[in-house]
């Protein structure tokens, strides 16, 4: 049979649903992180889009993933924002760890 890339590029195979395509074999560029085999991981990371537009796209995707799962639902709860605030507290703690290190209870600092 022809290689995966040649087979994949015909119009009919492109129109198959995603669950069928993952079974039959996707090119490396289009696999999600969990579907990448461990040996292919370095080449997959290098193929990702690291331009400013790509990074902005990644942040946007992440934001909407969180927003649509926890906040933009019919019965959103306080957990949606508290997770964000907890992450904010954690971020600030990591940022000021250098100064906070000296405030531990120790005999000799």
């Amino acid at each position, binding site marked *: 049979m022809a290689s995966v890339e040649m087979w994949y590029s015909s119009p009919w195979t492109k129109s198959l649903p995603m669950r069928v395509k993952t079974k039959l074999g996707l090119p490396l560029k289009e696999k999600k992180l969990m579907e990448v085999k461990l040996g292919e991981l370095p080449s997959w990371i290098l193929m990702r889009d690291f331009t400013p537009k790509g990074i902005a796209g990644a942040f946007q995707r992440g934001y909407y993933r969180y927003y649509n799962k926890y906040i933009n639902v019919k019965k*959103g709860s306080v957990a949606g924002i508290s997770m964000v605030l907890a992450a904010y507290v954690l971020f*600030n703690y990591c940022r000021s760890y250098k100064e906070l290190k000296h405030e531990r209870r120790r005999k000799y600092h």
Partner: protein
Amino acid sequence: MNENLFASFATPTMMGLPIVILIIMFPSILFPSPNRLINNRLISIQQWLVQLTSKQMMAIHNSKGQTWTLMLMSLILFIGSTNLLGLLPYSFTPTTQLSMNLGMAIPLWAGTVFMGFRHKTKAALAHFLPQGTPIFLIPMLVIIETISLFIQPVALAVRLTANITAGHLLMHLIGGATLALMSISPSTALITFIILILLTILEFAVAMIQAYVFTLLVSLYLHDNT
């Protein structure tokens, strides 16, 4: 202890990068924009609060003053959310920096003053002399009124800075005192801890009140000048 006390007010940089910009922009994530007629709970609560506040605050203005509604509503949301976020542990509050508060106060106050001088020059100048003053007091009073006009932006900025900074400092100090007293006498530590709880409740109130006061005063200056 002295260095630790003021370290939380230092401008945050991470490996030399000024991330203070990110911290100032963080509250905007907590206010998503409404897309539909009926939104999710977070947006609905925020919409209700904004409508309540805007009706109460902009009712005293005429149609010319009500063009400032967007500016004043975003101002009170920004200051309120920034102050409330500063009450979380380890966080940095941008409104403790005098530079930022001056940057907010001076342009807004200057906008209202210039608007007043442009559209109602005589009435704006007449503010410098209250009605019914004896004639021999007029020079003194004009000087005093001018000084009181120019002190308005400085007072706006310094009021906000001092209130928030003082609250944060008090909480640091009393928290440190509670920790230090724990090993010496637990009952005193308990009293100090109760004081800390009361102070935290006060700080929540102060955070919101300061936002309100700032915006209210700007709107008052606006009312005088439209």
